């Protein structure tokens, strides 16, 4: 019996470890949830697929208090594999009891995977942890939770003194934020949080484009293009507005813009396009690209860098 249990634990551990390690900064909550679900689905034909259930909670939880860090890690992974909000309190207790960095970080990642609103309280506590790695993970975990409180909490991360924390919060806001968070994102962008450009590009409405365009020439072109990239890939932005972006970038010109537009062109339909608007938009992009000189003229890469 003991052997079976250990084997079950080890396999589950292997599964969830991969899951935790694969968690990325800006992955949308939906995508993360999708990955988690996939991770927990037994592979077809794999008769050894472990089944860790919430019924084993009382059995796993005491291991969190072990002096053996490997055992604690294993317990954490098993709790994640249970995929039940009832595992949040023991993980929260583990965090609050003060752990070594690796355990703390793993527990925060576990809460991120679990994405349970019950973990908001403890995650908020860890947004003020003195170690920036812990704070960053706490914000990432918060971003994974579907809760109306989350965007407001993420805004606090933009006020953090650590650049990586601010960046994480900004990217997270781009995933879960909304129009209400746009002002603070623009403020953060104004203050040099470059990740805010992506967030603005993701959540900004059409009327935010002129405001965003004001940063052209003030912020590095690469940063600006990251925001425009998000605007252009969205379906809820009119082609007319996208055309304005392309024309504005055409004015800026330069190798970087040319390459950017060329990549954008690849996302547009090719060949015979029935939709006139799309066809005209593609033509606009092509025309703009042609107008940008290949060598010299416009803004060169070196000059773009200097603009920073």
């Amino acid at each position, binding site marked *: 019996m003991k052997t079976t249990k250990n084997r079950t634990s080890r396999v589950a551990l292997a599964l969830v470890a991969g899951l935790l390690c694969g968690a990325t900064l800006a992955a949308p909550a939906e995508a993360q949830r999708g990955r988690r679900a996939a991770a927990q689905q037994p592979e077809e034909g794999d008769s050894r697929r472990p089944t860790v259930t919430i019924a084993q909670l009382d059995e796993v939880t005491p291991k969190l208090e072990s*002096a053996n*860090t490997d055992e604690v890690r294993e317990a954490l992974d098993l709790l994640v594999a249970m995929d039940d909000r009832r595992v949040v309190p023991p993980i929260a207790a583990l965090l609050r009891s003060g752990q*070594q960095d690796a355990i703390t970080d793993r527990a925060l990642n576990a809460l991120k995977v679990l994405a349970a609103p019950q973990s908001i309280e403890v995650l908020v506590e860890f947004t003020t*942890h*003195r170690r920036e790695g812990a*704070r960053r993970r706490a914000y990432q975990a918060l971003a994974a939770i579907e809760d109306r409180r989350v965007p407001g909490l993420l805004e606090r991360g*933009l006020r*953090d*003194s650590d650049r990586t924390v601010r960046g994480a919060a900004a990217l997270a806001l781009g995933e879960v934020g909304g129009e209400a968070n746009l002002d603070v994102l623009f403020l953060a962008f104004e203050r040099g949080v470059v990740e805010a450009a992506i967030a603005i590009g993701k959540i900004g409405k059409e009327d935010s484009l002129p405001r965003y365009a004001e940063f052209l020439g003030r912020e590095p072109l690469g940063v600006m293009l990251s925001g425009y990239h998000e605007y252009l890939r969205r379906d809820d932005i009119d082609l007319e507005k996208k055309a304005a972006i392309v024309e504005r970038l055409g004015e800026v010109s330069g190798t970087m813009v040319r390459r950017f537009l060329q990549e954008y062109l690849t996302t547009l339909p090719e060949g015979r396009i029935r939709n006139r608007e799309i066809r005209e938009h593609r033509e606009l992009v092509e025309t703009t690209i042609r107008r940008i000189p290949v060598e010299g003229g416009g803004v060169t890469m070196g000059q773009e860098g200097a603009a920073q």
Partner: protein
Amino acid sequence: MNAATRFGSFALLLGLALAGGCASTAPRAAFSYQMADNVAGDLQPVLAAQPAPTGDTLTNALGVPVAVVTTHPLEAAEGQEATQAELAALNLESGEVLWRKPFEAMTRPQVLGDVVVTSVRGAVVALDLRSGDELWREELDELAYVGASREGNTLVWVASVGVAGGANRQGLLMAVNARSGSEIWEHRIQGVLGHPEVRGGYVFVPWDRQNIAILNLTDGVETARLRTTDDVIGWVRAEPQGVFYGYRGIYRFDERSASGTKQGSTYRLAPLAEAPREPLVQDDGYYPTPGTRSARGRIRVYYEPEASAEPGAIPVEGDRFYFVYFRYVFAFDGDENLIWARTLPRDVVRAHALTGGLLTIAEDGNARLLGHDAGTLRWEKDFDLELASAGLDVGDFAPTGAGSADPADEGRTLRTSLAEIAGDPDNRLVPARAFAVELLAQMEEPEITRDLLDLYAQRSTPSALREAIGNALRARTVGTDFLVTALEQHYDFLEGTPAPPLGLIVPALLEQRVDGAVEGLVSHMLDHETPREDLALVIRGVVELGDETVVPPLTNFLTLYHADSLFAENADAVAVAAEGIFRHGGEEGRQLLQTTMAQPRTREPVQVAVQGLFDREQADAAAQARAEAEAEAAAAAEAARAEAAARPLRLSQAQVNEVFVAHTEHLRTCIEGELERNPQLGQVRLAFIINQDGSHQEMRFAPNSPELVACLEPVMSELEFPKFRQRRQRASFTVSLRGGGDEQAGDEEVVMGPWWERAKVRAEAEGGERRIGRPWWQVRHAAAPPQGDGGTAQPTQPEQPAQGSEGDQSPEGGEGGQAPEGDGWNEGGEGGNGEEPWWLPGQ
């Protein structure tokens, strides 16, 4: 004839005189080392010649307030041509430039009547005040012109070298006709001379930093000499109000000057001694005053002595001292209370204290009068010159017509003025800005605390000023609410709000024991934005100002970080939190600490710190117990010493007898037994040595029949005598069996009855009185040592009797002890051994 030529002639003449065997022993006319100094009689003619003090008056020939200035040459710049150094005379009243001429003055010009005296490289030069035309010039060779003074047509000037040290120390004092420069007399000495002053027909010359030679102006003969014995003389100043001298402090020249001491003279302590750079009240008279731009002279105290001074005092005109530090001006009253302060646009090259305030001449050619009462702008003139130095003769200038009012004066308070200086971005002047901070912090307005916090928080504030602010805030007892309020601020990247200056605030809160700050401190303890370098201090604040209510947040902090890598190397903050739990957390807190310490994941520095708390407590407890034990032991020792001191030096016979009385019954039994065996027995005598602790030894019995000895020895072994100070003493106890023959009974009333009754009465009668009998060593018939096993120990060696008092007693003691007395000894002497001393070892 230049100075060098004259000096050569002088040397030649002197050489000739010596070569001719005319080595005179007569004292030189001045600066002789043989001249007596501080001779009151010598001072009398000088003092008598001094005119009565008057107020400050103009002395120049123009009769208007005049400034003769040197200008600073400017290089050509865009839109501006190069300028050269000039000398110019300014009429301050009219704002008119009287004349100006290219002139590279090396020293600040002086206005002396109708002459302006200054120097160029290698020469002293006199110019006409009215026209600026050169009147005369005297070459100086290697000497440096120091300064001049004038009375009537005679002008005296000094050039010197060697003030900064070195072997070459020379001084030249010349009296010349002011207009022609023709020599009247001169002195050359191997020593350093300072700026001379003339008043009342006498020349006052500071000399070698310790003396003032007072010479007759007419012939240059030294009339008197002052020498300070406990100070330095750095300058002499002759004014209409009198003659003053000193260095940091100020002396008035009067009859008391002959004392040569601060205490004996009319002396005023250095004003504003605490001001930065220890400003002087006069320029150092031994150094040339620069005529080019220089920091020298930019830091000065200006004042004007009061004319109507009481004898023995040096009051200050208008009760004002003005401290000028480049372009800051501070005005103090005579008690050194700050009255006002001002910041000027440019550095002050020269100032003069007037009844109406302070006249300042700035580098930009701006002359202004800052009002006596509040420092407001009372008058100003712009001469549009880039000044390097200015010599003034302004008397008590009282300009008519107000200058343009400075709008900045509106609503200006002392607080705002000081805050302006403290916050001035001119980092050349940090010492004065720190001084302003210090003065600001002494004011009562609570808002000043906030001002200082704001200034501290500015990034441009230099560290020296921050340190001054920190010191000032710690000393402030008002405005602590602002310190607490400041804790409400937290770092915010988006708002651009920095963390409050916790390194400044927390020490001040601790110094003032502001308990109300605990909440704010806790919030900063838990705020990750609190700078690491301040964190331990913040938690220290929580611990020191908090009580048991701070234990939960401290516990949270300790728990959260005890295993974190942040504190792997330096766990000071966590250690302070643990200390707080240890102090305020009671038994529960200690258990928590023990648990934390025992956890394997707890960082080693944290474990060490927590263990240290318990160890220290144990050590403290042990130390306290040790201290208490030592205190007890000391008290016991003291009591023992007191008890020992209260003991008698030795026991009296009565005290010895009292001990035996307590054993009367037993003694009677033994003696009755002996009487039965020896009916003729007249007396039983016991001789022994009593040790200082009350024990006894070397008991001898007479008679010493074995039966009696055997009977008495148990009794004797029980005897315990009172303690006494002497190391040991001999004693005896005699039982007279026949009555009347007992010498010890002496003159006592005869008591009828058995011997023990009589013994008791005798003991009572003798009381504490010691009866002095013959010295025991004069008794030839000593008791024999007891026989047999029951006998007391023999002396280990013969004891030699010693003459004399207690002080002569040998270490063996006993000498001078109670001797076996009287004839009774012989009466019972059956056991005695004739003429042999009893102390000899028995056979």
